[in-house]
């Protein structure tokens, strides 16, 4: 064992003179970096600020006495996401254990049940949703309807204190979900429109896509925020809704381009075979071309979801308090001025964990979609 590791080290790290120099520089450097980070994270850092500000980070300026509304909403979101995951990837008990680490960690750090309760609720409902669709395949059939109802409930339950008060990680997640779900059908329609035989439709769709892809997201969001009250003053749309519309308008163009690349990847022979069976163009596109096209572009589409989530902080431009902005708000308090690293590290870690979970789910989704291909 020791002999092989010495041999491995010799071969891989000290094989040539240049390797020796490189190893002598890099190995101590990495060790020092690891030591400093560990030392800071476990000795110097005062993580108490995260626990104290957890509510603000998670739900922004949502009133404290109404927080149960936001926690219920996040539990519903957890259940929907878990149930969605269960459709493509079976739940195993050890997944539950990993997820439960979050509330357990909170419990240990904070030493009180009150603060850990919302996290426990969200994690528990995620596990429940995941297990339900994993073990009861029949429940998958009602998922779209259930998810839609769940979303209505979320809006209904979060609206009373004022839609303008939505914020924190919850807002980031909601924005990402709404944008992803709405931009998919719009993007698909745009992609088909761009290939349409009607030249007017084709030109409109092409223009829309090209314009949206050549301007910055932040500009579109700001512009829609200003424009909506002018176009539809009677609707009195809240900032949050206007932000979601801006994001959806922008990201639909990107979805359209991904879907178009998928449509082009479907062999012409597929359309010809379907045509020769007498199928209508609508049926061909819906049942033959689109499923095969979407299968090809699962990875870029999920990348798009990740992109939406990571762009969510841009909503600060219209005065919303997303996750990142909530972190900045905490740091704006002079009392916490010296905790910059703690707060930013927490933001970084959370973004990283959520992003990794999205890509992980994407891999599982790709495996699931690969049915019928060798």
């Amino acid at each position, binding site marked *: 064992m020791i002999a092989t590791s010495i041999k491995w080290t010799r071969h891989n790290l000290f094989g040539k003179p240049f390797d020796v120099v490189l190893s002598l520089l890099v190995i101590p450097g990495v060790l020092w970096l690891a030591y400093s980070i560990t030392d800071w994270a476990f000795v110097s850092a005062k993580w108490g600020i995260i626990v104290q500000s957890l509510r603000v980070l998670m739900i922004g300026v949502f009133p404290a006495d109404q927080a149960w509304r936001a926690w219920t909403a996040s539990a519903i979101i957890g259940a929907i996401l878990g149930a969605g995951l269960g459709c493509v990837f079976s739940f195993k008990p050890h997944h539950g254990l990993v997820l439960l680490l979050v509330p357990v960690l909170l419990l240990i750090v904070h030493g009180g049940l009150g603060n850990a309760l919302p996290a426990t609720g969200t994690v528990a409902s995620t596990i429940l949703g995941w297990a339900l669709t994993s073990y009861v395949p029949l429940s998958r059939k009602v998922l779209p309807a259930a998810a839609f109802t769940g979303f209505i409930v979320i809006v209904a339950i979060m609206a009373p204190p004022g839609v303008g008060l939505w914020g924190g990680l919850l807002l980031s997640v909601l924005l990402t979900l709404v944008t992803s779900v709405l931009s998919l059908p719009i993007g698909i329609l745009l992609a088909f429109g761009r290939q349409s035989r009607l030249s007017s439709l084709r030109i409109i769709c092409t223009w829309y896509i090209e314009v949206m892809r050549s301007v910055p997201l932040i500009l579109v969001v700001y512009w829609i925020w200003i424009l909506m009250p002018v176009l539809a003053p009677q609707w009195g749309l809240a900032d949050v809704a206007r932000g979601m519309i801006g994001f959806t308008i922008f990201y639909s163009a990107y979805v359209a381009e991904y879907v178009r690349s998928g449509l082009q990847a479907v062999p012409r022979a*597929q359309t*010809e075979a379907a045509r020769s*069976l007498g199928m209508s163009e609508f049926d061909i596109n819906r049942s033959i071309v689109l499923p095969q096209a979407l299968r090809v572009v699962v990875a870029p589409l999920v990348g798009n979801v990740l992109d939406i989530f990571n762009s969510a902080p841009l909503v600060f431009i219209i005065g919303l308090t997303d996750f990142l902005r909530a972190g900045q708000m905490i740091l704006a308090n002079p009392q916490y001025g010296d905790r910059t690293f703690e707060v930013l590290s927490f933001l970084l870690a959370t973004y990283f964990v959520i992003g990794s979970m999205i890509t992980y789910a994407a891999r599982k989704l790709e495996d699931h979609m690969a049915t*019928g291909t060798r």
Partner: protein
Amino acid sequence: MSAIVEMKSMNKFYGTHHVLKDIDLAVTRGEVMVILGASGSGKSTLIRCVNGLEMYQHGSLVVDGFEMPVEADRRLGGERELAQIRKGVGMVFQQFGLFPHKTVLDNITIAPMRVRKKTREEAEATAMKLLDRVGLRAHAHKYPGQLSGGQQQRVAIARSLAMEPHLMLFDEPTSALDPEMVGEVLDVMRELASSGMTMMVVTHEMGFAREVADRVVYIDQGSILEIGQPDEFFDNPKNDRARSFLARVLKH
């Protein structure tokens, strides 16, 4: 003796390239017509015109009582005739054209359910009967990717038959197959021919042509050079180019 397909001085161009030149051809009901010719001669294009996968520019083409619109009319929306024709005409392709994301059974039932508005039970019962006929009942719930080329092509034939066509078009159905699988597909086609199905077959299988065809058509550079009984054509071709074509393909 009524013609199911009737072409009268049909012409097709790809841009300025004249692909089909003044084609006059009639296929009788119940007839098996094999179309021969070198690659690039226009034989695939000819049968692809019959179900409207290719458009023609001049002349006329009547399929199963419906007049196939010429290109200029189709651009203006002659889609109704097209749908009518396609319902009654099955087509089998060189590359099978099975839908890879659907099981064998779903591949067969989708068109009868969507186009003929059959219930799932009806469509599946028919599909299972057809799978029996092509010897693949046991593979109903597999995906096309799990089958061999020969099996896929038999599924493709069953899929076309599920629409109860009056006419079947075969576009080089065995050209993409490994040699040992050619036989099983030809057997199914032979059985189909003997059941009285009208067939237009583009193939390079000379043995099949000679045995099964009622008439053989030889095309070269977009023109029909010879039409005749298979024995007559193979033993005593009148046209020089047909003779040299046969000499080339029958040598081995």
